């Protein structure tokens, strides 16, 4: 099998619950080797998308491929290479952590029995659960369960890891560990598809981002591409703000705002040096002039319109 360029590709993927489209015709493209942040407020359809991707629920419309294979038909061939954590971990509370891993490993025909012990030990060590491996999961804290869930996703070497809000409910220490683990996995060559409603998380570890809102995919690309799409702004400090605004408007800059001695406007491809020349030639006293690159947060807010509130 030749390595496909995209680890996940969807076209027009739609899932309706009754009348409401929880996922509304999205076209995702997750490049192989990327750490892909799937960003969106609560209820925007991230988990639903992941469920469809893994074949847990039927799509209403659209088609999708995982690791280059059409799903859900190729599930048997694709799933061994996919590790997943979906909407929080789930275990049998009356079994120990290790017994749980054995149970899930044995649930698929792909897992080799002879290497099971070793693989489980490695996975437990990797998430730092070796010490409590023989305790009943009933006695685990939420963070411990989340780690065990990750261990489950890491029971075999995976080409793709789908992690749905993996740091949910974890302490800062755990969050940091997960972040490092994700980076490690990516360095080993796995594609990581990480959904989150936390911008900072995505910003810190992801190479690519997609933004969901109300079931729609608003934007996707590398972090740099998205920032650029948000629009660089020009900021001018001057003694004659009104005149400066007039000149900039004539130059064709949009979204002009005047606040005391400060003028803000979207650059939209204009060069700041050209603007500066025009202002000076018109006799505007320029105290300072700078191009401001937006943060991802600005982009996010601009795209979703409402920030991090639950959309519906």
């Amino acid at each position, binding site marked *: 099998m030749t390595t496909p360029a995209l680890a996940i590709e969807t076209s027009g993927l739609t899932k309706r619950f009754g009348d409401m489209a929880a996922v509304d015709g999205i076209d995702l493209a997750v490049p192989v080797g990327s750490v892909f942040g799937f960003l969106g407020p609560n209820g925007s359809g991230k988990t639903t998308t992941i*469920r469809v991707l*893994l*074949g*847990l*629920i*039927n799509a209403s419309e659209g088609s999708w491929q995982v690791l280059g294979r059409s799903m859900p038909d190729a*599930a*048997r*061939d*694709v*799933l*061994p290479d*996919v590790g*997943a954590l*979906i*909407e*929080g*971990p*789930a*275990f*049998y*509370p*009356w*079994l120990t952590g290790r*017994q749980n891993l*054995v*149970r*899930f490993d*044995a*649930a*698929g*025909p*792909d897992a080799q029995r002879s290497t099971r012990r070793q693989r489980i030990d490695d996975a437990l060590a990797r998430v730092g659960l070796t010490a409590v491996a023989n305790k009943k999961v009933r006695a685990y804290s939420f963070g411990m369960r989340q780690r065990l869930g990750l261990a*489950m996703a890491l029971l075999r070497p995976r080409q793709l890891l789908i992690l749905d809000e993996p740091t949910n409910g974890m302490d800062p220490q755990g969050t940091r560990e997960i972040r490092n683990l994700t980076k490690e996995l990516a360095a080993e060559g796995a594609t990581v598809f990480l959904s989150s409603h936390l911008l900072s998380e995505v910003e810190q570890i992801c190479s690519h981002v997609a933004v969901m809102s109300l079931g729609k995919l608003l934007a996707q690309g590398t972090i740099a591409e998205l920032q650029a799409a948000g629009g660089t702004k020009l900021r001018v400090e001057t003694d004659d703000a009104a005149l400066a605004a007039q000149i900039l408007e004539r130059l064709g800059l949009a979204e002009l705002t005047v606040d005391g001695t400060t003028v803000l406007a979207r650059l939209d491809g204009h060069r700041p040096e050209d603007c500066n020349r025009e202002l000076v030639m018109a006799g505007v006293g320029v105290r300072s002039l700078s191009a401001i690159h937006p943060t991802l947060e600005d982009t996010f807010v601009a795209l979703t319109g409402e920030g991090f509130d639950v959309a519906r």
Partner: protein
Amino acid sequence: MLLAELATLFRRLRVKVLLGVLAAIPAALALAVYLSGGPSSGRGPTFLDQVSHNGMFAALAGLTVAIPFFLPLVVAVVSGDAIAGEANLGTLRYLLTRPSGRTRLLATKAATVAVFCLAATVAVALGGLIAGVILFPIGKVVTLSGTTISLLEGIARTFAAAGIVAASLLGLASIGLFVSTLTDAPVGAMAATAGFAVLSAVLDNVPQTRAIHPWLFTHHWLAFGDLLRSPVRWTDIVADLRLQLGYIAVFATMAWARFSTKDVLA
């Protein structure tokens, strides 16, 4: 996969307790007979009046007492929990992201429930046998036809009877499995399954519904006793097994049609 599934089931405290209670039923019966100091006067469940003569009958008395109510209840609990319980825990979504396929998972569940049915009836038989051996003399076994068979054959027939009872419960178990695919609430599935067992038993006792009696899955639940006749009477046992097979065929395929296409949202 089946082994892992069985290990998961039988490690559960709830399942251990249920099996323990099942084994305690005939033991309690035997103890009651022992303490009252003699055979009850021909009343009460069949086989019970024989317990003080031959402790082995405690196993059969236990099966007779457990089959109308407790065994179906226990089977309803375990079969109703089969899929709905996994959905409730959330483990279903992780089982399904393993590349085994839904049909295979369902088949494994069905096999596990069947093994549990056998474990449940064998628990009753064993509990009865052990209590009977401790409390009473044992020896040659008098059949319902008034003939005498050796103790060994009597015990063999008792365990065969436990097997027949387990098979008799498979129809109910497949109903439970189907109901279990309909919901994410295991308690609801258990209650509904137990409800079906009660409904079937009630209909079987109402003369107005005589026409459908042979079609009720509880109808031949006492057929296991025919193993204790000489010659063994197979008519009802065969009818029972055929009926259970019919229920299994219909409800297992319904469970498959439902489970293999349903949205797993839990």
